[in-house]
């Protein structure tokens, strides 16, 4: 008999616990819920990981969310964080491609009182995001030194993040951005700095470790971009220094003591150079056009630095490239002239379908992530007309953009959350040519994740598949300094 009594008590407790998870029926208020990240009215690909979010009310004890698809299906979740089951989430988004997900949010406060907020929506894009995920360098937004840095890949359909290369693997050396050929997992380069530093080049199963400084060039390869056929990589050769601002409105001003363009022929380990892009002026951040016939890059007249830092303004230019002959053209075209707009262009990135070219504009300089005024601009390559991407821009730095090889989607790094730590946002260009409201890279527990993150998502890019790197080989090459020297093609 007494066992029945305990069972009854247990059942009552369970019932109470269950009923505490759901709010009572009540009319929603007209107010939208305060959530982090702000996912209201964003457009997402159906493949994206669950868009978990937190409510930001300090007295919130519990959140209950009911999601309904405009086409079919629905799901619900309850807890401290609005955390959605991955499988059910993908079922729901998959069944509502081109439709809308409506989120009804109710929050229980510390006094046990429920508040129901006005529903908000997410749009499930009919543009698929076919990539495996994204790759980025996690690095503290620091100054002259670093602690733990690494290049990581993140599955966009889940929360799985795995390292591609961490500094622990290569004796604490600094590593620079990962540059892949249209997101290919088997064709990319990574620079490693410090003793035995070089450029790690992977294509197919091969790994090569190159010394990209030839006697005739000024320095090592820095910013890179692959030719679509995978044979060439355009690099700029930069010597970057930094100055530190005294006033609180500014932080760091990186600038190039010199910068030239080179093209690396990965088949012959030769550098293709031209006096036209190796001048006392500053040529930097090259990017091949999708057909591989042009190289976009930024070009500035040299000024006395660091005193003339606010006069250092880059134009957007391009030069022809003949992949058959492996030759640079003889003429530079200016697409956006810095002196005309009195602003500085950086990081040109053409979409892989050849429709658009996205770039940054800042008041001056070459490092948009260090300029709060850095905005994304987009050029329609068919007309040559540019406009600011206001739909995606914020009052803080928005930079380091890249396109999805599948088309439409793009990602970028934005400091909009606090002005210091750059986070990764995704958006897409809709059929009307406008960008959708960007959304922050989803995390399982977003508020905790982003509050505790002491790194920026540096130089992000899409990747088609998961990258696999033979770490033993890489470590051995770096440790021994097994560098292959490049030469300049005569």
């Amino acid at each position: 008999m007494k066992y029945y009594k305990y069972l009854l008590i247990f059942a009552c407790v369970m019932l109470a616990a269950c009923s505490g998870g759901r709010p009572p029926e009540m009319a929603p208020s007209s107010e939208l819920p305060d959530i982090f990240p702000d996912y209201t009215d964003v457009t997402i690909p159906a493949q994206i990981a669950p868009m978990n979010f937190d409510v930001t009310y300090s007295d919130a004890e519990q959140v209950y969310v009911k999601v309904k698809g405009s086409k079919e299906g629905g799901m619900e979740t309850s807890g401290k964080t609005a955390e959605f089951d991955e499988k059910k989430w993908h079922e729901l988004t998959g069944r509502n491609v081109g439709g809308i997900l409506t989120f009804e949010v109710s929050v229980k406060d510390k006094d046990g009182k429920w508040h129901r907020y006005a529903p908000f929506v997410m749009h499930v894009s009919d543009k698929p995001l076919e990539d495996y995920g994204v790759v980025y360098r996690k690095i503290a937004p620091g100054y002259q030194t670093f602690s733990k840095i690494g290049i990581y890949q993140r599955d966009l359909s889940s929360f799985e993040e795995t390292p591609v290369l961490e500094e622990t693997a290569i004796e604490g050396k600094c590593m620079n951005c990962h540059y892949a050929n249209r997101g290919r997992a088997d064709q990319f380069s990574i620079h490693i700095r410090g003793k035995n530093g070089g450029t790690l080049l992977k294509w197919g199963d091969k790994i090569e470790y190159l010394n990209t400084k030839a006697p005739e060039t000024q320095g090592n390869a820095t910013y890179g971009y692959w030719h679509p056929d995978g044979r060439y990589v355009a690099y700029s050769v930069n010597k970057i220094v930094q100055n530190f601002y005294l006033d609180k409105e500014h932080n760091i001003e990186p600038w190039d003591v010199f910068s030239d363009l080179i093209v690396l022929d990965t088949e012959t380990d030769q550098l293709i150079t031209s006096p036209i892009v190796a001048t006392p002026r500053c040529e930097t951040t090259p990017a091949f056009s999708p057909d591989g016939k042009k190289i976009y890059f930024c070009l500035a007249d040299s000024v006395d630095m660091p005193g003339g830092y606010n006069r250092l303004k880059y134009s957007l230019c391009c030069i022809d490239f003949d992949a058959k002959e492996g030759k640079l053209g003889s003429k530079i075209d200016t697409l956006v002239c810095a002196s005309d707009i009195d602003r500085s262009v950086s990081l040109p990135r053409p979409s892989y379908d050849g429709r658009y070219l996205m770039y940054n504009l800042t008041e001056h300089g070459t490092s948009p992530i260090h300029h709060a005024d850095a905005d994304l601009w987009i050029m329609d390559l068919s007309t040559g007309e540019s406009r600011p991407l206001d739909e995606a821009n914020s009052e803080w730095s928005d930079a380091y953009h890249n396109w999805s090889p599948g088309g439409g989607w793009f990602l970028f790094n934005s400091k909009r959350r606090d002005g210091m730590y750059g986070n990764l946002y995704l958006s897409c260009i809709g059929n009307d040519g406008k960008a959708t409201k960007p959304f922050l890279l989803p995390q399982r527990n977003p508020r905790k994740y982003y509050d505790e993150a002491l790194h920026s998502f540096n130089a992000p890019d899409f990747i088609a598949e998961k990258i696999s790197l033979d770490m033993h080989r890489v470590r051995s090459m770096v440790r021994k300094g097994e560098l292959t020297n490049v030469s300049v093609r005569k």
Partner: protein
Amino acid sequence: MIRKILFGCIWSAILFIGMFLFLWLKVPQYLLYHEQYQLFQFTSGYFTHAISLPGGLADYISEFVVQFYYIPLYGSLLASLVLTLSQIFLGLACRRCATPDVAYILAALPSVLFIGALGDENTLLSFAVAMMLTSVFTFGFTFINTGSTTADSVLLIAGFILLYWLAGPFAILFISAWGILRHRSVIFLLLVSLLFVWTIHRLFFEQYPLGSFTLGMNYYRIPETYPTIYFIIWGVMAAVPLVTLIKKNVKPIISYAIAAGVTVFVVIYVPASFNADKSRMLAYESLVRQGRWQEIIERAKKERPTDTFSLQALNLALGMTGQLTESMFQFDQNGVEGLIGDYKLDNTSQLITAEALFRLGLTNIAFSTTFDLQEAIMNDRKSGRFMKRLAECMIINGNYEVAAKYIGFLRNTLFYKDWVRQAETLLGNDNAVDAHPIYGPLRRNSFTKDGFYYHSQLDKILAMLVLDGSGNNKLAWDYFCATTMLKGDLATLAGVCNYYADTFGLPTLPRHVQEAIAMYWTFSHPSFDGLQFPISPEVKQATAALAKAAMTNKNNPRAWQNAAPGSYGVYFLRYSNSQQQKSGSPEYQSTHE
């Protein structure tokens, strides 16, 4: 038996008390130094992150203990406890195998060797905790005797795997100790253990070098670095159980003699392991951290430091107590580096410079310097001290979002959470920040115009900081005067004093500035008539005497010192002489033109 137990207790107690007193009274600065290179948090995430790597529990316990270094009394107690427990369990393990007292005495050697190893500021307590855990396992496994070699081996391998995960490669010593104590060959087991280590490395930890998996991931602050003393300690720890092979009973008198011998060794070895200069510098640094300015000055009066690091501490202490330009040249100054150091890529050199930059109101530069100090921590830890300073800078700059992020890390700590409570009331509250006794003035004195920081132009930056502000940033004014005096740039000093007088009214000139201006004036004037600034008769008299001494005893600094003891002029003449020797020509900036 009772004698044995009593002797053991007394020996362990002596060891504990000796280590505790040494750490607490002789080298507390090392404890404070260690504390600032980690940020222990009472969160499940911190724990799970720690134990996700081999040796993680040792790291976790170590960092738990090291947080108490914030108060050296507590820190010394806990660290000594760890080391004494290591001795007790290793000693008991040996004693269980019918061993004389000798092994129990010698079991103290790894612990006291480790105390000596602490003279290297990068030695981490994780090593000692791993040693303790290994001793505990060694002791525990002396109870294992299934009667079956296979079963024993399986249990031993299981114990190794567990210990390896908790304490790291120290676990290998557990196998060897067990083999010696139980008179079994463990070569095969050692090979299996190493195979296990290599296998898990290959399968799961490719991003780490194999070396750190076989010699320790976080026993030392610098990755993949293993000081010689570690190998000695490993060797001694492996050798101590060998004493159990002595079959005969050792007479108590021999045990006492060995104990006395160990004690003598400790008394000689441990203090000798701590470099006096390093200890002094760290002591100054720890006093700066605690804002014990007067103690720094008193200490400097006795020690007469000449290295730039200690001088930075002294000069900051003088500045904070309003004495910099009154008495800095009573100490042996050696240039601007003794005020503010130039950038260095390590986690220590800029500690005092960062503090000085913050106090001066160069908030952005204090932030970047502190940020880099934290990033330079070689084992990728964060720092409670630096995190607090970063948050303070962000509060002063009004970037409350970033300040809140840093404060969030300190919320779950033991010794910073009180500050967090205060700081949280400032977030988003400009009025409260303005009214704050430290942050308010620093915010008001911050730079408003854009411009870059150059160490070589520190004097100009400091002058701008004073003159562009309200003119009442006394520390910046003193540092400006000190910088120009240390550089021998008297023309700039006089020029800025004139400008200051025109803008804010005639400043009250402290003693050294009077001396500098008087000296500058004498270069181009036969008398002090017409000098705008009030110079005391004593300074005029001393300057005249010094000028005379310099003329008559050109290369005799002692004569200069006798003529004007502890005055700026003596420094200036020495400095000028050294510049002259360097360049072959005088560098006096001696005319108004």
